[in-house]
């Protein structure tokens, strides 16, 4: 019997309960041990970068919703920040703070999904729903601000489409009051539970060096012990005003990733609390009539507003020629937008730097030699989101 005779090839995905989204892994098993893993990508490739080349800038925001759909506001705002960088638009502190609140809410929403799904994949379902019901509160906040829950299309180039209403503010406050006890409860279900610790410690570990070589960012890199965080190192949207810690792990295994994400939720709560308390008064959008739609009343009364309105919607406002790269700390890692403008109504070229794409490359290295069950929770804790992976 040759060596490969007793190997079993299984397709973990594209329709497997453990692959959240449409991912495929062709795994060779020796018993339960993984000998080789080949990830396949592209199952939900929608050619967003190409689509974006045929859309005016404001129409690309809804496309970014569909990258990491667990935290679409971060994608939206990241894109708006990129365009503002190209247009050289300075936003006021109030807009920055509003954006920070929304982005941190999105980060919590993303992390709580990832961590609680890790619980589901390791067999404990209840903790998932204890947290999941609080994501509902976050979604209601989105709904109050932008009108929908999942594909938010929140914010506009130059600010927000509308101010936080009183209800939205109340809902944020309510979330800040209700969520911490629930998170604490979730932590006490998992953090020190030996079954869970045994399942996760040492599983899917990656060294800091390998992680950096792959280009890891975000919680997955921080779990290896590198305190790299875009929010702290190249602050955008006034993140330098806030006081927060950067949680790091030890050896980059699943348990570290879980703990880092848990702690990041606490830090996000801290940031939201600070931003909400220090939220300055003022307009919710900057005064850039060339890019921010005028109020409807002006569209009727003033010729200038009407012209701008038409020009903005048609995308006929000249933009500077040049290229910009802007990155935000997405829930999953550094989410970058590389935008080349030739001055036309659409981007000449747009590239999304999607963190999931990087993580998925490292997946084989992380699971080879471990058991099938480990592959499942490693994938789960990497938080590979198919929409972002394939773009």
């Amino acid at each position, binding site marked *: 019997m040759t060596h490969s005779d007793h190997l*079993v090839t*299984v397709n973990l995905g594209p329709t*497997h*309960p*453990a692959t959240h989204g449409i991912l495929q892994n062709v795994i060779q*098993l020796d*018993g*339960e041990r993984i000998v080789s893993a080949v990830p396949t990508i592209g199952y939900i490739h929608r050619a967003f970068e190409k689509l974006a080349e045929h859309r005016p800038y404001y129409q690309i925001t809804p496309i970014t919703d569909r990258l990491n759909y667990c935290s679409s506001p971060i994608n939206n705002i990241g894109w708006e920040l990129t365009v503002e960088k190209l247009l050289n638009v300075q936003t006021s502190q109030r807009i920055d703070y509003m954006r920070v609140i929304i982005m941190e809410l999105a980060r919590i929403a993303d992390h709580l999904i990832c961590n609680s799904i890790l*619980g*589901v*994949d*390791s*067999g*404990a*379902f*209840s903790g998932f*729903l*204890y947290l999941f*019901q609080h994501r509902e509160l976050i979604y209601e906040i989105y709904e109050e601000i932008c009108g929908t829950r999942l594909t938010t299309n929140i914010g506009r180039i130059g600010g927000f489409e509308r101010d936080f209403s009183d209800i939205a503010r109340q809902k944020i406050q309510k979330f800040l009051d209700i969520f911490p006890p629930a998170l604490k409860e979730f932590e006490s*279900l*998992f953090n020190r*539970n030996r*079954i*869970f610790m*045994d*399942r996760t410690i040492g599983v899917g570990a990656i060294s800091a060096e390998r992680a950096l070589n792959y280009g890891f960012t975000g919680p997955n890199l921080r779990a290896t012990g590198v305190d790299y965080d875009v929010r702290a190192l190249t602050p955008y949207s006034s993140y330098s005003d806030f006081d927060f810690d950067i949680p790091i792990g030890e050896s980059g295994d699943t348990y570290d990733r879980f703990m880092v994400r848990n702690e990041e939720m606490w830090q996000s709560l801290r940031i939201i609390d600070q931003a909400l308390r220090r939220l300055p008064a003022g307009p919710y959008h900057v005064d850039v009539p060339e890019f921010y739609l005028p109020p409807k009343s002006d569209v009727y009364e003033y010729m200038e507003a009407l012209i701008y309105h038409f020009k903005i919607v048609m995308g006929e406002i000249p933009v500077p020629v040049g290229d910009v790269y802007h990155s935000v700390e997405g829930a999953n890692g550094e989410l970058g937008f590389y935008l080349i403008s030739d001055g036309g109504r659409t981007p000449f070229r747009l590239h999304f730097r999607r963190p999931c794409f990087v993580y998925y490359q490292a997946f084989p290295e992380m699971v080879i030699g471990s*058991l*099938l*069950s*480990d592959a*499942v929770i490693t994938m789960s804790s990497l938080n590979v989101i198919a929409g972002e992976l394939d773009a």
Partner: protein
Amino acid sequence: MSIYLFLIEKTILSLVIFAITLSIAMYSTLAERKFAAFFQDRIGPNRAGPFGLLQPLADGLKFFFKEEFIPASSDKILFVLGPAIAMIMSCMSGAVIPWGKSLIIGGHPVSLQITDLNIGILYIFAVVSFGVYGVILGAWASNNKYALLSAIRASSQMISYEIAMGLALIALVMTTGTLSLSKIVESQAASHWNILLQPLGFLIFLICVFAETNRTPFDLPECEAELIGGYHTEYSSMKLGFYLFAEYINMFVASAVISTLYFGGYDVPFLNVSGNIGVLLGTACLFAKIFGFIFLFMWVRWTVPRFRYDQLMRLGWNGLIPLAILNLLVTGIVLVLN
């Protein structure tokens, strides 16, 4: 008593127990879904009938009307045999459990135990071990890699945990001095429940029962997140129903066995009612204990994560078996000293 009367009596008793087993298993499915919902701040099924009480009937009906699907590359005979074995074996184990004292009907004592085997415990062991063949055969016959992995997990898990379970039981048998379930219950009714004599043994036994019935944290053979459906990945319609049903029957029987062995069976504590009412009260008490354990099964399932395959084995061989042997030793020493 004539042989015919005896046969009629036993047939009726068997049928009644069979019916009760099935209906409890049926409603366990509803209870599981309801309890899971309650544990998770949800409501659970509530559309079929008041509080969803007709849900199990709807589920059963659905199973019957679903397409009978047998994969082309499967071994057809074994594919059908698998669920059948699982179902039959789980129903058989109820035969030796003493459901109550003897009722007096028309001057005749009518035993509420189908048969009082003097090796009742061994019988249960034998039947439960047979149950795993249902899983293995079905999984192997369906010619699916996930199912096969599940079968391997199931068989190694069953074998490993049966050892610890057996060792825990030997200690119990040493204290009670009999293998007959009815005698074990009587001895407990006379003095005190075995849980007080064998707390560690009970804990080991309980853990092993969780493993034997494939319940979380030991539900590796069917863990959804890894093996899709485990051994019943390829099954549909009532054959799938049989597997799911067998699981709940196993849970019911296992609860009955635990109650019988460690919690005094039909013994009602601090109460002494004679006559038929006392017998029925005892039976009711046994069922109360059984429901308590079924609830415990579900409660644990919706709380803890599951083990990994190697950790499960390590816990069985390195943890439970030495503990069980220790328990055995201590029991022996205490018995000798007394």
